[in-house]
């Protein structure tokens, strides 16, 4: 039987093509590959399987996973469980979007171009920034790119990050930054409330400082309030202020553009994208409107223009001379394939919610966070949160006063169908037996109650 995905895999078609080429068989087209490197036997991989069997096989393997729907999961950090409106799936599964590529021919790609322009527009409204690209891979690569971008703009090579940064994101940042000579330094944070230690920051900034980076809300969930002071310190020394955000917080908190951010990065997964066990995700990247900044942005950007005859509004990719296919080794980045479909999903999501929807979403998450903090703090031996500051979505649970470790408790919670927070000991030993928990609008009051009960029981059990 011919291969279902290879229409010319029939005798008739093959014969026609071979005759047109006056060759006896397809082997003639591979005769230039030296004999020594020709594969002598078939590849040792399974298949082929018919569609029904492929489905059965993959489904049976995937059944070994348990999902957020089977368990009460309180993990966050890099990705979070959020509601995905049905409209998002409907629009993004349109095969015109799904099966297209980078819109090199704008005349037949206005759909994806307009969607990505709207993504850039709405993300800038949300962040209160002027310009955005239409995605990089994830928050971590956005941060790496931001450090490189700041270094190009300032011609300085020190990038200062907060002490309480996601350890994974920090590793990626270093992977991206260090080969080009960018040094990553950490600034202290107040152990009481998580505020950036301004004294330490003042000592660390210098004429070498390309940028200072702050996350808001922080990786550990607390809000950093003195952001304007940080902005002032870095701007005074001639560096840039880079801010990392969770976009779901911006319906209720001030946007980074409002407190001096020059470059903003963040994770767009919560905007209509699934967790997908870690990807695809959506790296958000935005900057101020200065041309000198925009010219240093990595990745694709979509612009509004008109047709050549001026009769119609139209969209196309812009400033491609920044990019690898034109500028090659002098490009702002090597990125080519990005996360366009995730950006399109985010655009649909943002348009659905609107300003009111974002406010409601933010309030919902804020209430849930406060509720969880309040309930869990009532358990003896448990300190929630460690930092005396408002928290959003994420919060720390400390067990130094209890008789069990985080991993002992997590094991017991899992037996009750609850996935506890991520242990932080290896990254932040000074925080003791602490885990990072997270709640979103999807967590119900019953879930939080179940966590409270589970935690209590776990600590009581022998």
């Amino acid at each position, binding site marked *: 039987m011919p291969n279902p995905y290879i229409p010319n895999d029939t005798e008739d078609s093959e014969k026609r093509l071979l005759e047109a080429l006056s060759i006896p068989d397809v082997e003639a087209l591979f005769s230039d590959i030296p004999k020594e490197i020709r594969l002598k036997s078939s590849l040792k991989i399974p298949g082929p399987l018919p569609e029904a069997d492929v489905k059965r096989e993959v489904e049976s393997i995937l059944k070994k996973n348990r999902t957020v729907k089977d368990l009460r999961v309180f993990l966050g950090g890099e990705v979070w469980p959020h509601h995905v409106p049905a409209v998002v799936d409907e629009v993004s599964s349109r095969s015109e979007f799904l099966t297209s590529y980078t819109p090199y021919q704008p005349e037949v790609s206005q759909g994806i171009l307009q969607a990505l322009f709207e993504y850039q527009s709405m993300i800038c409204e949300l962040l209160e920034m002027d310009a955005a690209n239409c995605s990089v891979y994830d928050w971590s690569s956005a941060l790496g790119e931001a450090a490189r971008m700041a270094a190009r703009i300032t011609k300085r090579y020190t990038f200062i990050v907060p002490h309480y940064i996601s350890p994974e994101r920090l590793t990626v940042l270093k992977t991206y930054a260090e080969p080009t000579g960018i040094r990553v330094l950490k600034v202290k944070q107040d152990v009481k409330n998580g505020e950036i230690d301004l004294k330490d920051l003042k000592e660390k900034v210098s004429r070498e400082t390309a940028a200072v980076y702050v996350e808001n809300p922080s990786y550990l969930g607390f809000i950093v309030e003195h952001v304007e002071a940080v902005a002032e310190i870095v701007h005074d020394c001639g560096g840039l202020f880079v801010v990392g955000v969770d976009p779901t917080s911006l319906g209720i908190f001030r946007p980074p553009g409002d407190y001096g951010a020059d470059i903003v990065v963040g994770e767009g997964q919560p905007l209509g994208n699934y967790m997908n066990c870690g990807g695809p995700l959506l790296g958000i990247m935005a900057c101020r409107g200065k041309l000198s900044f925009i010219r240093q942005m990595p990745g694709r950007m979509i612009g509004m223009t008109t047709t050549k005859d001026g009769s119609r509004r139209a969209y196309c990719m812009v400033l491609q001379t920044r990019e690898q296919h034109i500028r090659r080794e002098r490009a702002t980045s*090597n990125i080519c394939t990005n996360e366009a479909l995730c950006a399109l999903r985010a655009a649909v999501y943002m348009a659905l919610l609107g300003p009111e929807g974002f406010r409601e979403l933010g309030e919902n998450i804020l209430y849930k966070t406060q509720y969880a903090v309040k309930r869990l703090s009532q358990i003896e031996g448990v300190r929630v949160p460690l930092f005396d500051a408002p928290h959003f979505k994420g919060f720390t649970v400390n067990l130094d006063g209890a008789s069990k470790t985080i991993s002992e408790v997590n094991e017991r919670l899992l037996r009750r169908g609850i996935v506890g927070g991520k242990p932080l000991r290896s990254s932040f030993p000074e925080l003791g037996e602490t885990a990072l928990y997270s709640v979103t609008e999807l967590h119900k009051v019953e879930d939080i109650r179940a966590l409270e009960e589970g935690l209590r029981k776990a600590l009581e059990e022998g």
Partner: protein
Amino acid sequence: MNFGVDSGIYPLGSCTMKYNPKVNEALANLDEVRWVHPDQDESEIQGILEIMYKLASWLAEITGTHAVSLQPAAGAQGELTGVLIIRAYHKLNGELGRRDEIIVPDSAHGTNPASASMAGFKVVVIPSGEDGCVDVEALKEAVSERTAGLMLTNPNTLGIFEEDILEIADIVHEAGGLLYYDGANLNAILGKARPGDMGFDIVHVNLHKTFSTPHGGGGPGAGPVGVKEHLEGFLPVPVVSFDGERYYLNYDLPNSIGRVRSTLGNVGVLVRAFAYILSMGPQGLERAAEVAVLNSNYLARRLSEIRGFTLPYGEKPRKHEFVLSCSVLKSETGVTAKHVAKRLLDYGVHAPTIYFPPIVKEALMIEPTETEPVESLDRLVEAFRSVSEEAYSRPEKVLGSPYNTSVGLVDEVKASSPRTLCITWKMYKDRLRTSERGSR
């Protein structure tokens, strides 16, 4: 309006725009993929880990490498990973300060020099020979004790197989460098030859090209990286391992370059590629390469017979793609590659990649893939023929195209000009306000 593979032939060279099987979508959209958090206990994500472990081992077999990381989100991130491995390798040998050059041919994808430069290397470009392949003598001249590695795609961007690959590999290895394989063109040789057997030390593959996952208007993709045994310890952490009973995340790689992303990888894309390989099996993948190459040579033959178009760099068989030139058409009619591309859109086909590789003047880079039937290949030939006839009879028709698209020719110069640049709605409104003030 948006043109996708499902709309018609999308012969964008180097992009492998093949059909995206629908069953793979259905599987990647299951709750067991979508609603799983990567930090869940390993015991709760055994399904995902099993898929990742098996996919990595299959990709190692397909590419002739020893171990594969599934972390990179796209081909370019795979390249960065690979070049960082080259860097870490020389660093471990105490040679990083000295070995600061990566060699790339002038026909390379733009991502190659860009990735090398991102990893802190100087880029040394070597000119292609008269046959369009690596000029072995030029390579010998270029290598030195400063050589960190060579980045190459084989078949190259002209669609020609680099026959001297074993000699090329020897030259680079003898100079102390490593060989990097850009997997963008892997579709041509599936089951026929493996980069690992050609002497490449590091290989990336594009799951969104060779392994049929949808391109999504520009992404997401996935760019797994395979390495030979001596480089396994340099891979990003974690990799998925198997202890005979359970799959687990292995962080025990002594010389790891670190991470290139904070999570496991583009898992949704990995699931699709896994299902694709299961559907195809060894015979199916080899057949994909055969028919991709057959379709490509058929088109190369028929299109180069059309007036105004030539196939530079000789009659050697092409692989999955080929590069036409319309220099003759341009000098005889004034119609350029861009005009041809725009007029082709009127015929309901997508245009090829144009003006790449840079070594061909008025280049049209065409990759039909194995998933187009002969009827659609013929439709493309007829479209080219009509454009040629028009170019010679009434060139203004071609010069003014496209006519049959949702919008006419888009003003890309205006779009990028600093005075009219507008990349958000906010910038648009600001501009309107400024011009209103100006006209008052």
